[in-house]
């Protein structure tokens, strides 16, 4: 192949892309849809359930204050510390629950694997930025809240002019 034809071919393949659909996801107007409600773990079978590893969710009515999540995280990021809570639950005599520092957490999900009482899961929430370091520390009360986010955009392949994000 001659040099000229090669260059024309190269230019041509770029020019063709003027007609190709835009692939970019226009975040934050659009948010990609995740599978499921976040990463969960089933201690009875020892296998996780696929989902996004985002901000945690703590179920206060299950947590026993056993500290296993905090022990697991000690070897990873030391993001979990156990704090006193005011609530009284009969399964949680010590009244301690995990508090997570998202300035340290690496979202590995090993604390979820460590929890034997189905009380710590992860959610699809990944927008955790804050102006202060303290704002990154989530107390048990904050972790209890179910995130309310609309993520609905999916990759579409049906357009003959290329894949798009809807």
């Amino acid at each position: 192949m001659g040099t000229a034809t090669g260059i024309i071919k190269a230019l041509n393949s770029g020019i063709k892309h003027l007609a190709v659909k835009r692939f970019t996801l226009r975040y934050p107007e659009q948010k990609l849809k995740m599978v499921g409600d976040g990463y969960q773990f089933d201690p009875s079978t020892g296998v996780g359930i696929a989902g996004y590893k985002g901000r945690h969710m703590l179920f206060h009515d299950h947590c026993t204050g056993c500290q296993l999540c905090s022990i697991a995280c000690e070897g990873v990021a030391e993001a979990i510390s156990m704090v006193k809570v005011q609530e009284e639950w009969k399964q949680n005599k010590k009244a301690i629950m995990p508090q997570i520092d998202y300035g340290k957490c690496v979202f590995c999900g090993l604390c979820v694997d460590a929890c034997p009482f189905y009380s710590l899961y992860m959610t699809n929430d990944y927008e955790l930025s804050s102006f202060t370091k303290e704002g990154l520390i989530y107390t048990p009360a904050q972790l209890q809240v179910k995130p309310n986010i609309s993520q609905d955009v999916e990759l579409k392949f049906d357009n003959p002019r290329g894949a798009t994000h809807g």
Partner: protein
Amino acid sequence: MSSTPLPPGLQIEKVDERIMTLNVGPQHPGSGHMRIIVKIDGDYIVSADPDPGYVHRGEEKMAEYRNYVLNIPHLERPVIHDSCNVLYPYCLGVEELLGLEVPERAKYLRVIASELNRCVYIQYWLAIYGIFLGHSTMFMWPAGDRELYIDMLEKMTGARVTHSFFIPGGIRNDVPANFEDMLLKRVNYFEKRIKEYAAIFYDNPILISRTRDAGKLSREDAIRLGTTGSTLRASGVNFDLRVKEPYDAYGELDINVPTLKEGDAYARSKIPWLDMLESCNIIRQAVQKMPKSGSVRVKLKPNPKGGNDEVYKRVESGRGSLGCYVVSRNAPEPYRVKLSVGSFRNLICMPYLLKGEKLGNMPAVYWSLNYWPVEADR
């Protein structure tokens, strides 16, 4: 006459008048997190001395203080774009130490995850190679198409880059429903997209004239200097651990290892692209042969202990053979973990390749070696 003692204070090194020493890096975008000390005569490189070590993180030492499972999140850090492949030898090794048998379905899912990861890594590498050569379209396209597989891996593993997906004894979670359909759609589209790179990049006469015959590595030298991965295969040696020492499900798959004879920067930049095309084939085969249901992970005891044993396992990563040596001494923590990485092996041949090259060709030769500074430093 005895030589007069040098005066105290600053001493000036004697230099040749024609030769100039340049420090490329460590914060130069054309070097990665490393320094290359090049001596130039005019525009030609007389000698090049790579100086890695700026991103040493102590991964191996850290592994001695954590148990076999908690080592996972930090051991994948050396190459986060290739995190499944970096963890692979460690998981294979620990499985042998603890005597775990991986379920059949997990073996195939591991192959799929590591092939997806290989493509994600190569696309990132290719994007940087493009921008090193001043071809900014070749930066945009791979960086965009990479998103297809990142998105797939996110649905599979729950994280975009640092997946923490492999675990001794299988994988962390089973794949979501509708997985095969999602995967095959992306693989087919991805394959179609990367085939378009040929016209704009690989068949482009400007790229060819820039990289043809630059940094030629002969077959003998490639073997003698111990290179691996794409650098070795671009010099005509057909060596790929996926075929030579098949691990997990690779033995049951039909793999055509791409090799080229030229051994120059062009061939070295083309092999990873051919690898990606082959990865698409491997993924399709794995999806077909994979058991449709079943367990994906054997249940581990808390704090599993290994015996008095040691093990060495290696896999083919995006940068060549990647080995992991694990020593266990009856404790929940490994006694020693040593990673032997492809990047560092490929760096060894760099001083030989750059000698006599033009300085402007240095990024083209350097990045074609498939070198990843963070991995080499661990």
